[in-house]
């Protein structure tokens, strides 16, 4: 991961992002087929229901995302799926088996604490000064008394108990009015959009792990963070996939819905 390289490319990416995300821009339009409908006979109770959400559906167009890289994305989806079942899941299970839960929670806290600068700055960029204050307070308490963040001691202080919602640069850009652009699935990193990718790159400047040298060590730390985090979410990906008729579409939609919620918060 060569950050300096990215720095040079940022203006180009930004331009790209704007081009794709401009509301009503050439590439953001999503085709919508109109289905002329005729009312069948049905329960009045449900009929009322049907009419109601047809309105609701109109408002839902924002949940659509353009997918011009469909074929690339779909192959990356398959790649990540294999990576999960063949590598990540077995490794996470083995690690979970040999590592007691308090230790894993400690590492999870540690990594959460480490990325405080990212959340702090983005809280400020979104004008959430109160949340920024809580982030800063938590960081100070947990880094010192909480042993570099392994222990979440901030929970003992009533004003720091409530953990603020996660903020990142992708959300900040969204708050500034920049759209998703288009959907993109990265190998290993998973689902994202053009805007959120740009956000992740920007946030990288505030993430201490990105400055670890050599790069291989940084990658190792990242991998460990991922595996450790995964032990708390094992089975969730399987449920989402198993419940879906079109898993690729289900995951794309879930990503967009989840981001939408975070942006609103």
């Amino acid at each position: 991961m060569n950050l300096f390289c990215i720095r040079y490319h940022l203006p180009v990416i930004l331009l790209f992002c704007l081009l794709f995300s401009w509301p009503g821009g050439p590439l953001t339009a999503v085709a919508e087929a109109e289905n002329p409908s005729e009312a069948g006979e049905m329960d009045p109770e449900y009929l009322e229901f049907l009419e109601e959400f047809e309105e609701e559906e109109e408002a839902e167009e924002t949940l659509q995302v353009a997918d011009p890289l469909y074929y690339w994305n779909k192959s990356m989806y398959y790649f990540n799926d294999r990576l999960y079942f063949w590598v990540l899941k077995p490794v996470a299970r083995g690690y979970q088996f040999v590592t007691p839960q308090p230790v894993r929670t400690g590492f999870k806290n540690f990594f959460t604490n480490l990325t405080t600068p990212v959340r702090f700055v983005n809280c400020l960029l979104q004008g959430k000064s109160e949340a920024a204050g809580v982030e800063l307070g938590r960081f100070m308490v947990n880094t010192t008394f909480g042993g570099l963040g392994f222990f979440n001691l901030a929970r003992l202080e009533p004003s720091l108990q409530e953990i603020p919602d996660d903020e990142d640069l992708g959300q900040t850009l969204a708050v500034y009015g920049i759209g998703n652009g288009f959907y993109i699935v990265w190998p290993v990193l998973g689902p994202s959009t053009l805007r959120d990718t740009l956000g992740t790159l920007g946030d990288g400047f505030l993430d201490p792990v990105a400055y670890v040298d050599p790069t291989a060590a940084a990658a190792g730390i990242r991998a460990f963070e991922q595996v450790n985090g995964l032990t708390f979410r094992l089975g969730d990906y399987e449920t989402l996939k198993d419940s879906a008729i079109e898993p690729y579409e289900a995951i794309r939609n879930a990503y967009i819905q989840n981001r939408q919620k975070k942006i609103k918060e």
Partner: protein
Amino acid sequence: MKKIISVLITLTLFLAMPAYAEKSKPLDDLKGPLEQGIAILKDPEYTSNREEQREKIWELVQKMFDFKAIAIRALARNWRGFSPEQQDEFTVVFTELLKNTYLDKIQGQFHDEEVVFEDQDMLSEDKAVVETKVIRQGNVEIPIIYSMHFKDTDQIWQVYDVNIEGVSLVKNYRNQFKSILDKDSPEDLIKRIREKNVKHEQDRKNQ
């Protein structure tokens, strides 16, 4: 004078009471069966009899969820393009799909998870959302919001959508079904769901 007023107030309250007492509260209609379900999941009696546990939980789930409403909402606009037979068939297979996935999930994964009921928000006379949180080991919190409506026929509040970490179940299916129905017929969709159900059933039997 005072007496008359107090009598009047009491009378008014008395008359007004039944109107409120009649209707149950969404939170209660959800909380009751949900807690019964958790008790069944934790009951050691069922550790060797998973099928019976499954059926017991399913009975409760059927009381809590309005599967027809979920089916209609998932198809949205396309619902009207289905013949009445197809609508019924779709409702049956889709309900089966939800049953399979979610019962597997809670039966397989529910270790020491805890459900906290946070809030109940009345959106209107017969619509409400109930906010809950599932707390997993290691203090991992997962917000789950249930959208509920009051069913006049059963005089009970039932769930018509579940929102997990911002992802609405109904909207997620709606998006999938729409993309399938843009290309294929209602019959094809029903067939695909049915195939998935058969596969789920086989996987479960093989466990």
